[in-house]
Every structure is written in C-alpha cells, then in structure tokens.
C-alpha cells in the first residue's frame, strides 16, 4: 500500500495540470468546430425563423382583428348615416303628405263653396223669375178684378175698350207706385 502511495506521489511530478496537452487541444478544437458548424448552420437559423414566424403569426392575428374591427366600425357608421337619411326622408314625406292633404282640403272646400254659391245663385234666380211671373199674373188678375169690380160698382159696362185699357193701365201704375211706397213704409 505504501508502495502504491509512493507511486502516486511520483506520478504527480509527471503532469502539470496547467500545461495543456496538445492532443487534447486538437481534439477539443475539432469537436467544438463540428458542434459550432452544425448548430450555427442548421439549427439556430431555423429557430430564428420560427421565432420570426411566431411573431408574424401573432402580429398578423392582431392586424386581422384590427382590420375586422375597422370594417365593423365602418359598417356601423354606414348604417347610421343610412338610418339618418331614412329618417329625414320619412319626415320629408310626412311633410309633403301633410301639405298635400291641406291642398286637397282647400280644394274641396273651395269647390264646395263654389257649389253652394252656385246653388244659392240658382235659387235666387228662380225665386226672382217666379216672383216676376207671379207679379205679372197678379197684375192681369188685379186688372180684371178691378174692372169687374168697377163695372159692378158703376153698374155699367164700359164700352170703349180703348178707354178701359187706358184706365186700367193707369190704375195699375198707380197701384205700383202705391205698392212700392207702401213697401218702403
């Protein structure tokens, strides 16, 4: 055992841990170079690409959502303007209808008034004609009556036709004037 211990002690002088072994430097360099080559060339660029794709996917999603939101807002705005337009249109139509109704009313009223005026005028005219004819009848009747009456009263027939007529005419004229003055009174 002591021998082994001594052997180990002797061995300690063989290697200095601070001095690199050149074979190991070669192996380490080559191995590390291989590792670097593979990872840097094939793996990490892929990862960067994936990261980028992921960022784009997320940003694209956000962008799409924003676009959809904008479109929805635009549609809403559009509907609102349309609604406002429809409202003003409806108001305009209502006003027009009201104006129309008023016009029609005035029209009908005017016509009715005209009709009534016409009817009244016709009635008046008829009345006037009737009065005229009645007056004429009355005149002749009154003449005859008066003549009859006068004949009876005087007791003699008035021979002279012409004189009779003249007398009657005069009498009626007198009656007329008396009637008009009496009417005025």
């Amino acid at each position, binding site marked *: 055992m002591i021998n082994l*211990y001594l052997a180990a002690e002797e061995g300690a002088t063989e290697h200095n841990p601070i001095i690199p072994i050149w074979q190991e430097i070669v192996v380490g360099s080559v191995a590390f170079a291989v590792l670097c080559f593979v990872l840097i060339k094939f793996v990490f660029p892929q990862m960067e690409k994936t990261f980028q794709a992921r960022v784009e996917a997320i940003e694209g999603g956000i962008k799409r959502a924003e676009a959809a939101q904008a479109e929805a807002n635009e549609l809403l705005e559009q509907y609102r303007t349309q609604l406002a337009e429809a409202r003003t249109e409806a108001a305009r139509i209502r006003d027009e209808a009201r104006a129309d109704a008023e016009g029609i009313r005035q029209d009908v009223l005017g016509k009715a008034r005209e009709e009534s005026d016409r009817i009244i005028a016709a009635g008046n005219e008829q009345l006037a004609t009737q009065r005229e004819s009645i007056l004429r009848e009355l005149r002749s009747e009154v003449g005859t009556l008066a003549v009859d009456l006068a004949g009876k009263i005087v007791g003699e027939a008035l021979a002279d036709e012409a004189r009779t007529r003249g007398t009657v005419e005069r009498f009626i004229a007198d009656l007329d004037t008396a009637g008009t003055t009496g009417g005025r009174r």
Partner: protein
Amino acid sequence: MVIGQSTVLAAAFPPSVEDFYLPSILPWGEHDNYWFTKVTLLIWVAVAAIIIFFLVSYRKPKLVPTKKQWIAESAYGFVRNNIAVEMIGPAGVRFAPYLTTLFLFILVNNFFGIVPLIQMSPMSHIAFPAVLAVISYVMFIYVGMRHHGPLKYFKHALIPPAPWFILPLLIPIEFFSNFLVRPFSLAVRLFANMFAGHMLLLVFTLGGFAMINANVLLAPISLLSWVLTVALTLLEFLVICLQAYVFTVLTASYVQGALADEH
C-alpha cells in the same frame, strides 16, 4: 469483499493530479497517449449528444412547439435574450448562435463531472477551456477591429478618457487587463472550478474508504464523508451551471466592450 474493494480504492488516497490523467482507451491502457482517452471520448459524446438532440427536436419546427422543441428553443432563447441581447444589445442577436453553442458545450461537458459512473469533466483538463478562451479572445478582438477599424479599435481599447499625465500608467494596465489577462482568466476560472470540484469529490469519497480501511471504528465518519460527497455533488451542480453561464456572459461582455462606442 467490501474490505477488499475498499482496499483497492483506498490505494489511490490521497488523490493527486495523476487521477486526472487516465490511461488511454485506444490503444487500451497505454499512458501518455491522449488521442482517445475517457476525456476525449466524453468531448465527442457531448458534441454528439447536443447535435443529435437539437437536430431531432428541431427537425420539423412548429409554431406551437412540442415539448422537445420547446426545450431546445428555451436553451437558445435563454442565451439569446438573457445573455446576448442583455449584454450586447440588439446587435447581440448576431452572436447568439455562437454564445449558445459555447454555453451548451461547456454545460454538458461540465455536467459529466457529476454524472454517476462518469464523474469526470473534460473541462478539468485545461486544454479544452483554453481552446474556448482563445476563440473568445480572437473573436472579441476581431469584432472590435472590424467595427472600429484596427487602429481606432486599439486606441479605443487602450486609451481611457483620462488626463494625459495618467495615461502612461493607465495604458499598460489596460493592455495587461484587456489583452493579456482575459484569455487566461477565462480558461483558468473554468478549469480550476472543474478541477477543484473533481478533487473535492475524490477527497471525500476516497477519504471515506481510507478511514474505514484504517480503523473500523471510524466507519461513522466514513459515512459522514460519503453523505458530504452527495451534498458536494449538489453544490457541484450549481458550480457547473454557474461556470458555464459565467464563461458565456464574460465572452458576451468582452464582445460588448469591443463594440461599444465609448468607455
């Protein structure tokens, strides 16, 4: 039988530097032949494992990732966003692939240090951290020279904005810290951590055997020693992740310094 086994194991106590230099696998058992040893095998295993995992899990990338794809993306996304972009700024995305490769390479190789039955990190051989440190060193100088132009870059890196009479003192200091110490500190920090971690595990494991071997009455202390080994393995896990992170962050920070427009 237990005693026999422990005798064999205890033979190696106390652990020495030689425990880090294992005999060659091909040709079998030969010493001082380093082309194919456990350590170089592990390097290849790490490289193969990382490549296979990433190629398989990222063969058909989808927008909505599968679990494997998610893990692969998280590894890259972590270095890309939390190291490259955080340290260098938006221009850091350019460096994210290299930084991620660096991070994964160190992490997996470190991790071999606590995998049961392997328990040997290639990073405890300074050759591997040294290679990585040299790459970082060359990279940040190259990046700086391409960004500013060679002359302007060295002027920018060496001459801090200070009164002229301090410059004779500051320029050598800047040169020393920026161009001499950086690669060594990078390499040695990682190497020493892994080396010390492995050494600690060896001490506590083998120490347990050594004590139970020396005196059976010391068995409880051996047990304590082994429990501590487990605890140290957990601590080692922290160191593994931290060192991989630190190496990557420092590389990113050097690149950032080279790209910066003012001090």
